[in-house]
């Protein structure tokens, strides 16, 4: 049984209009490992993660979590599975009408597992874990810098100690030091919780810091999967061109899509 991956995706396809974004994705994410997904802008990385989250309904294929195909489950059972996933959205997606502490404690309050006072105290602890002062809890998301927003988004994602954690470009738009700090927090959270993680990133340094394994998405398919440490010397032409940022190579940038 231990060989069964936490997340197993087979033949996942998704088309918007006549544009085929995902074209038969096969991907296994073993339990308690973190998988880095790389790929060009617009290659469908966010769509892939949103399919697993159930925010976007795929056209075809299967997504198994712990061996159960979530696409075939009853809505209530689907919600239960998705309750085990924490997500850091690409743009943060913090609730801007709520103070930071309520953002962080949102999942706890939604499950009614705690009172508001307890949630508030817990939010302060989690904010400390991601390197923010508990007093930040009283601010509103609009009053935070981009880096602080990422940290709050991270705090919100890990608050309920989820079994799975998804990160969509956690370090994009941050300075290199802050990027490294966030990466550190992510690995700390993932290892600390023993969670299974999927992280999308464009940043190769970040990919090697966060990832145990890596996969590359190109033209709607996974074209390479291997150890994250081998991203720079994978021997795969597509991956090499991407990770080294070469303009010449098999990947032709499609300026018009």
């Amino acid at each position, binding site marked *: 049984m231990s060989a069964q991956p936490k997340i197993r995706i087979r033949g996942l396809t998704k088309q918007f209009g006549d544009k085929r974004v995902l074209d038969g994705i096969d991907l296994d994410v073993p339990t308690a490992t973190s998988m880095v997904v790389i790929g060009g802008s617009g290659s469908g990385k966010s769509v892939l993660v949103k399919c697993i989250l*159930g925010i976007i309904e795929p056209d075809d294929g299967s997504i198994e979590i712990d061996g159960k195909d979530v696409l075939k489950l009853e809505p209530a059972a689907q*919600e239960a599975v*998705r309750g085990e996933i924490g*997500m850091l959205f690409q743009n943060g997606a*913090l*609730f801007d009408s709520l103070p930071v502490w309520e953002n962080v404690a949102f*999942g706890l309050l*939604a499950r009614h597992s705690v009172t508001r006072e307890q949630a508030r105290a817990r939010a302060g602890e989690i904010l400390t874990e991601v390197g923010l002062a508990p007093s930040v809890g009283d601010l509103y998301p609009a009053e935070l810098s981009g880096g602080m927003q990422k940290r709050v988004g991270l705090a919100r994602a890990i608050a309920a100690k989820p079994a799975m954690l998804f990160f969509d470009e956690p370090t994009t738009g941050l300075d290199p030091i802050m990027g490294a700090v966030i990466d550190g927090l992510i690995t700390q959270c993932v290892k600390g919780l023993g969670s299974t993680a999927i992280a999308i990133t464009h940043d190769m340094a970040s990919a090697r810091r966060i990832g145990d394994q890596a996969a590359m998405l190109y033209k709607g398919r996974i074209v390479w999967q291997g150890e994250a440490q081998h991203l720079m010397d994978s021997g795969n032409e597509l991956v090499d061109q991407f990770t080294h940022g070469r303009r010449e190579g098999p990947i032709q940038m499609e300026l018009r899509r």
Partner: protein
Amino acid sequence: MTDLLAPVALTGRGFLVALGMAGSIAIFGARGISHIFRPPFYVRLFVRSFVEFAYFSLPVVAMTAIFSGMVIALQSYAGFAKYGATSAIANIVVVSVVRELAPVLAGLMVAGRVGAAMAAELGTMRVTDQIDALTTLSTNPMKYLVAPRLLAGTLALPLLVLVADILGVMGGWLVGTAKLGFNSHIYLQNTFDFLQSMDVVVSVAKAAVFGFLVALMGCYHGYNSRGGAVGVGAATTNAVVSASILILAFDYVLTELFFAR
């Protein structure tokens, strides 16, 4: 030949689109209503929407009601003076305000104020992934965002309209006594003699329907908006325009239902 048929095809396609939209709004509304009755209940959010709807719309609706009562008094005096039927003015004011003007104008004002704000808020939440984020935090967005607003709209507008009824009649009384020289006591006597409880019931019933429509249009267009700032802008416009049209259409239907016998 194809050119000749183009307008027909266009009309047909427009009709189909409208039909499909009506269907999806109906489904959206039904889902929203069903969540009002199933726990968990977000009391805090309901109260927030209710206050936004009722309390903060009060000044706008009050002004609208007072002035329309005043105008009706003035207009009907100008029209009826030559028939010597000036005593009818109190009656005309109370009937037109309570049956029609208060619910319709309050509905339209609230559509512009609250419906637009709802569409903008939900639309922004949609395009910034906040609605998706809700689903990842064990929260059903229909229950969290839509249900409290629908309930607040349906309950708050009747309250507002009762106030508008009173203020509208007061507006008429103000013009009647201060400008047209009626006796205050007789004017009020005429008003209460003519007002029937059915009129108030209709006023409140219309208000409940209009409040629901305003909230439904605000939520539907906001919830389903897409395409960044432009999309949110379009959602806001659509929410106000469609709510206004629906208010006038349902006003006719309800009037037909209650009074056409």
